[in-house]
């Protein structure tokens, strides 16, 4: 029964050495087999050579997180074996290249010194020599099924069959690894071949050699390890689906959501969003739009700025001229954008800033997970830079709709919107269907945008009941925009009465935002609504929390989970109500100081005295919440630090 399938697979190797294509191919193999997938990349701040790995979870219906231990580890080099030998479940598979067997841990130059010493100590205690072959033997003794792939021999056979040289097929080693993994997991060769065709689409020679490599490997596995129990087909066969990273899906949402100008300065983990938009700067319109506009394509301009100061200020300039604009960055870039956020506030300029958080403080660990910019985002900008909106998405599909909503809210309320995302989402990918990314579900709204204002009466900063004034693009009517305090016409003033009115206008606008964004967009309750045990969290912890709640519910522990989605405006009444009606409240965050807990205290006056924090910069996993919740419930109060992941 495919409903019972719940597989975790890990693929590790040197960065730049085929991890990415192996991971991508593996995800496609499982999708073609009819499953939903969720995959995460973990990698070093390095271009080529350091250790990176993919975690892939496979389920019939939407996995939302990954887990340890894994059911199969594909080790493309010895460092992977040394890094992850403790992550294998009993009766799991270790697939490795026989070339790496002789490698000693001390001979692996890229491996982190601290990691090496820790691994050596652990192996010493287990009585295992720090040589790859010995670790493999040790794993075999614990019940792991070890599968050695003689790549050179397999390449020779593949070459002979294609009547070509070994060299010309040498790039098929990734396919061989994936095929071996598939064969051990009981996946048919057909699914592998189809994924090859999909992944190398349009490159005929490459498809042929990879298909032959897959066949050779499949036979090798069958001959040496027998036939595994077949994996049943999942429920999603014969469908047109998609797989995308969080970066991809936000880029898609920006294009669908009508962004006509995106500016950025390259920073991890945001850059792939801008890259994807650049690649798709000219895009096809759907049938109705083609007919209506009389053209089949249109475009979104993406410009790489010289720094984040320029990126946001350019976006603001574009918005002043009437474009729907956005920019993308990470924590360090948000630091540089602070002054311009304040500028956007006083000039009432709509702009969406996607902030892909990573590990800080300072440069921290650029390629790893963190949720440390919550308070930074809320307090971004000097001089009471309010109103603004701070929105945090919990997963890919939420991020898609939230991006479109953020674009709408920015224009409707004429404020900067900081959309908090993170490395976990940026570098993870999930499968989904057409109905999951409905482009028409959230209608595009531009608020009080007036394309043809009356020059005689127009006042850009007119005082209104809701604090929002008519917005005419620069160039349609003569008026001035100022970063200084100004009157209704935008003209600078130090008059105390007008200054006070403008302060109250901004305050009123925040009240309008609080009123008009429905409570259901501010916070969402999951799980058993009547439970008196509540997890409160925000952002990408949602997936591991929901998956862990499923496992805990099977054991009879029914929880509810309050996901805070907007921090400005804050869902004060909901959070208050939920906390006050709980016996146990546990906060989950990827930061040390409990930034969400501080925000909750600030707005509600209530404290959350149990916290689960992940601080090692790796992706939060299901079992960590599962174990963390149990531990937190056994305590009166305090901090549970969860530490899985390599």
């Amino acid at each position, binding site marked *: 029964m495919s409903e019972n399938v719940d597989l975790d697979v890990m693929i590790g190797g040197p960065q730049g050495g085929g991890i990415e294509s192996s991971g991508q191919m593996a995800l496609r193999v499982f999708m073609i087999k009819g499953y939903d997938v969720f995959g995460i990349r973990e990698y070093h*701040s390095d*271009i080529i050579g350091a250790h990176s790995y993919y975690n892939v979870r496979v389920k019939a219906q939407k996995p939302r997180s990954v887990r340890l231990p894994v059911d199969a580890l594909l080790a493309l080099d010895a460092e992977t074996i040394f890094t992850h030998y403790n992550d294998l479940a009993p009766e799991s598979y270790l697939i490795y290249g026989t070339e790496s067997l002789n490698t000693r841990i001390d001979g692996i130059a890229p491996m982190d010194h601290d990691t090496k010493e820790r691994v050596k100590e652990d192996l010493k205690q287990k009585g295992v020599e720090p040589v790859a072959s010995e670790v493999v033997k040790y794993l075999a003794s614990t019940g792991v099924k070890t599968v050695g792939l003689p790549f050179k021999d397999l390449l020779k056979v593949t070459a002979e069959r294609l009547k070509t*040289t070994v060299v010309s097929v040498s790039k098929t080693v990734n396919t061989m690894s994936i095929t071996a993994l598939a064969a051990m997991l009981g996946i048919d060769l057909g699914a592998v071949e189809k994924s090859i065709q999909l992944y190398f689409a349009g490159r005929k020679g490459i498809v042929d050699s990879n298909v032959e490599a897959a066949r050779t490997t499949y036979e090798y596995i069958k001959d040496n390890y027998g036939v595994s129990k077949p994996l049943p087909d999942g429920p999603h066969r014969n469908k047109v689906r998609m797989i995308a990273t969080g970066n991809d899906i936000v880029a898609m949402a920006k294009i669908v959501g009508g962004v006509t100008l995106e500016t950025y300065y390259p920073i991890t983990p945001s850059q792939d969003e801008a890259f994807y938009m650049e690649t798709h700067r000219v895009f096809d319109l759907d049938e109705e739009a083609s007919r209506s506009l009389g053209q089949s394509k249109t475009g979104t301009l993406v410009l790489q700025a010289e720094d984040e100061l320029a990126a946001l200020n350019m976006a603001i300039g574009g918005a002043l001229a009437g474009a729907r604009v956005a920019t993308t960055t990470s924590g360090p870039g948000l630091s540089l954008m602070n002054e311009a956020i304040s500028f956007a506030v006083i000039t009432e300029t709509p702009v969406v800033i996607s902030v892909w958080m990573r590990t800080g403080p300072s*440069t921290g660990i650029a390629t790893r997970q963190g949720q440390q910019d919550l308070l930074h985002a809320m307090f971004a900008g000097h001089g009471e830079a309010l109103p603004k909106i701070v929105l945090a998405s919990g997963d890919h599909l939420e991020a898609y709709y939230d991006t479109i909503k953020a674009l709408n809210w920015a224009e409707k309320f004429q404020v900067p919107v900081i959309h908090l995302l993170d490395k976990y989402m940026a570098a993870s990918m999930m499968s989904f269907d057409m109905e999951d990314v409905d482009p028409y579900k959230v209608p595009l709204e531009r608020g009080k945008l007036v394309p043809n204002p009356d020059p005689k009466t127009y006042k850009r900063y007119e005082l209104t009941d809701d604090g929002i004034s008519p917005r005419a693009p620069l160039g349609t009517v003569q008026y001035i925009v100022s970063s200084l305090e100004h009157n209704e016409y935008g003209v600078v003033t130090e008059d105390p009465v007008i200054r006070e009115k403008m302060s109250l206008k901004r305050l009123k606008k925040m009240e309008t935002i609080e009123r008009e964004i429905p409570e259901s967009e501010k916070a969402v309750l999951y799980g058993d609504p009547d439970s008196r045990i509540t997890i409160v969290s925000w952002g990408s912890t949602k997936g591991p929390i929901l998956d862990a709640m499923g496992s805990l519910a099977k054991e009879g522990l029914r929880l509810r989970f309050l996901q805070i989605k907007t921090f400005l405006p804050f869902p004060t009444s909901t959070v208050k109500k939920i906390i006050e009606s709980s016996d146990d409240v546990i906060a989950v965050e990827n930061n040390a100081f409990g930034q969400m807990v501080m925000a909750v205290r600030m707005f509600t006056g209530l404290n959350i005295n149990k916290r689960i924090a992940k601080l090692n910069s790796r992706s939060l996993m299901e079992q960590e919440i599962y174990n963390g919740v149990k531990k937190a419930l056994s305590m009166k109060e305090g901090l549970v630090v969860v530490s899985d992941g390599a």
Partner: protein
Amino acid sequence: MSQARSCAMCARWRPHVVYPFVGLCTHWGKLTMDTDSCEHFTELVIDNRGIYWVPEMRSRVTGEEAAILVRRGVRVYLGAYLDPDVREETYGAF
């Protein structure tokens, strides 16, 4: 041809960064296997001022360091071969 005069031992050969049994022959301008060989075999002579690639260490060393490594039996090369499609495999790292 004997193993001692194979591509793997040739000064004109650049091993693949990740799979060192494949490499680029700079004489023929094409990929060969480490065990291939031809009449243009050239002995590698370490130049103290040179820079060398050490596959085992996945790192570059100076000529002086290379000479020490060679005496210890470590293979060094004048360079490494980087797959032209390698950017499809890399990640944003800063």
